[in-house]
């Protein structure tokens, strides 16, 4: 009975609710699998998702476990600094909406690399964009898998390795059998479930202070032991430049995350792409107001034992707030509410990792294999088969890396790296390809490489890695390199462009098509 030396006791109730979620989402996958028989259905759900549905799915991709448990936990531990990444990730929607959403839908097919390949020399530009995608997705996916294992272990008492295998296996079933259609609906179901749970949690917490927001703030500050300092910045991102760098990484990196950009290909036209971004902004904004209340509420209400309960990184603040509100440990209400909020986190992890595998499979199968290696000679059916093989390969590698890294691996720097590469390698090339007439293939390649190499190098030299966490003698002082690597990405794009004399004549075509929607991919071509 006492075979496990760790404190992870098996909790029956969360496991039952997790099981219900698995049953529902696997049912959705079965339904979707019968509607997924072409490459366009696999990668873009037949382009038949409506704007509000896609808005919820995009919001679901944003509302990851890091955004829900991570941000509320950091607010619990450090106050305002924990909130900055969340706000930065939300405002990144303005560049996405104004610059990218409609144009991606009008000019692309399945992946963000399609956009670059459209006007630039297709094979090298596509390779560069695929490289950026694969790096971002790989770091992010492994980080999410490690977080998934650690969280499920803490919430349900299932051991880390088994939790990673369950998460990885389920994610692969969604993607391989149900493609983008299943991945989208799993994300929508989770988004509704998560938003509902967080709303109940936040309103209940506010009720404890008679719906007086100011009272919530003062009680949180008192409980923190930091006083008023808890309500301002400076307790987590100690160096001022770290605030700027982290803010930039999340504000521009989110706009270069391949699994989110990919969702704009699933709607019928550019107008729906625009509207889905609008819906997403609405849901994500509401979500971050609620997360603020949950973070401050957990500090105000958990009491002195809170610090020990929430664990390192504060990830368990939200579930334990639910337990306290429900009546405390051991009470039926407390156990049920804890299980429900844990299940919302579990559903979040499953839905987000599935989206990441979709994006990685797009980069490997559609970009690298079908267009760079096979040069577009394969039939649709062949592309679909390769997509499934690529998804399996990516998934198995991610599961293996997560288990090898183990639950104590510092995932914070992996996440920082993913956002930094997205902001520095993907975003500049994507932006310039639609806005700068002179931009060319050499510019795209040097831009992606500059952004990628600068991010990787500076992360290795930063306190998280060199020579160990929290070191004071790191060659690069900031925890996130974005403030240097984003300019490096743009400079790479400019230098490469200027040193190459290549002119391309397709810019006018891209311009006309991306602004008007002429010649855009039609919805459900196979339905006819």
């Amino acid at each position, binding site marked *: 009975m006492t075979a496990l030396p760790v404190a992870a006791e098996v909790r029956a109730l969360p496991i039952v609710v997790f099981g219900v979620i698995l049953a529902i989402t696997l049912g959705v996958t079965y339904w979707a699998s019968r509607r997924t028989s072409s490459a366009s259905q696999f990668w873009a759900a037949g382009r038949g998702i409506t704007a509000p549905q896609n808005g919820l799915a995009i919001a679901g991709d944003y509302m990851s476990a890091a955004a829900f448990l991570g941000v509320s936990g950091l607010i619990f531990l450090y106050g*305002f600094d924990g*909130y*900055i990444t969340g*706000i*930065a990730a*939300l*405002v990144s*929607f*303005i*560049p996405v*909406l*104004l*610059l990218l959403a409609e144009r991606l839908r009008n000019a692309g097919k399945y992946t963000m690399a399609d956009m670059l390949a459209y006007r630039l020399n297709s094979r090298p530009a596509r390779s560069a964009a695929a490289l950026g995608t694969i790096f971002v997705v790989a770091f992010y996916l492994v980080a999410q898998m490690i977080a998934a294992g650690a969280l499920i272990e803490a919430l349900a008492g299932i051991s880390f390795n088994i939790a990673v295998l369950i998460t990885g296996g389920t994610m692969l079933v969604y993607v391989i059998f149900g493609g983008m259609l299943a991945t989208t609906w799993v994300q929508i179901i989770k988004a509704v479930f998560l938003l509902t749970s967080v709303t109940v949690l936040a309103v209940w917490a506010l009720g404890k202070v008679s719906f007086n*927001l*100011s*009272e919530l*703030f*003062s009680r949180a*500050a008192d409980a923190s032991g930091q006083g*008023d*300092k808890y*309500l*301002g*910045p*400076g307790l987590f991102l100690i160096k*001022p*430049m*770290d*605030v*700027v760098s982290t*803010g*930039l990484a999340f*504000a521009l990196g989110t706009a270069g995350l391949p699994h989110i950009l990919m969702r704009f290909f699933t709607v019928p036209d550019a*107008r729906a792409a*625009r*509207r889905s*971004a*609008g819906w997403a*902004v*609405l849901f994500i*904004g509401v979500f*971050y*107001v609620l997360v*603020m209340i949950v973070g401050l509420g957990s500090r105000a209400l958990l009491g002195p034992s809170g610090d020990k309960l929430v664990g390192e990184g504060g990830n368990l603040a939200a579930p334990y707030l639910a337990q306290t509100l429900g009546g405390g440990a051991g009470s039926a209400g407390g156990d049920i509410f804890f299980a429900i909020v844990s299940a919302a986190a579990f559903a979040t992890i499953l839905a987000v990792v599935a989206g990441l595998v979709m994006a990685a499979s797009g980069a490997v199968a559609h970009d690298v294999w079908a267009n760079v290696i096979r040069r577009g000679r394969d039939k649709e059916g062949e592309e679909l088969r390769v997509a499934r093989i690529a998804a399996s390969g990516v998934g198995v590698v991610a599961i293996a890396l997560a288990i090898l890294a183990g639950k104590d691996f510092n995932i914070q720097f992996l996440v920082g790296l993913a956002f930094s590469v997205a902001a520095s390698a993907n975003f500049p090339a994507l932006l310039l390809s639609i806005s700068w007439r002179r931009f060319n293939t050499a510019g795209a390649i040097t831009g992606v490489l500059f952004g990628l190499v600068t991010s990787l190098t500076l992360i290795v030299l930063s306190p998280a890695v060199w020579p160990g966490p929290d070191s004071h003698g790191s060659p690069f002082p900031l925890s996130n390199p974005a403030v240097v690597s984003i300019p490096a990405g743009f400079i790479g794009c400019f230098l490469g462009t200027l040193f190459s004399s290549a002119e391309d*004549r*397709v810019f*006018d*075509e891209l*311009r*006309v098509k991306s*602004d*008007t*929607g*002429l010649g855009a991919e039609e919805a459900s071509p196979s339905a006819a």
Partner: protein
Amino acid sequence: MAHEPDWAALEQTPEFRELGERRRRFVAVALTIFTVWFGGFLILAAYARDFMTKQPIGSISWAYILALSLIAMTWGIAYAYLRWSDSRLEPLAERARRTAEEAERG
């Protein structure tokens, strides 16, 4: 299959020029508001910590008030863009599309 239209000539048509010009103007204004507001927020959070910790409304600090104002700003810009593109941009895009289709027919 219609023959490939002359994209460079299309790009020069008054219909398309106006579409591009209008869009650029809206996007420039919106991105300026975004940059100043969000950039100002980051700089204050980084370098004006005492100010951000002050509490002008009950115990609610400037840091959170400005963060919530950024959520409102995001909603505002998104709403304005959606309204504007439905009422102004779509008719222009429709006109540019018709010009292009006429050109395509030759």
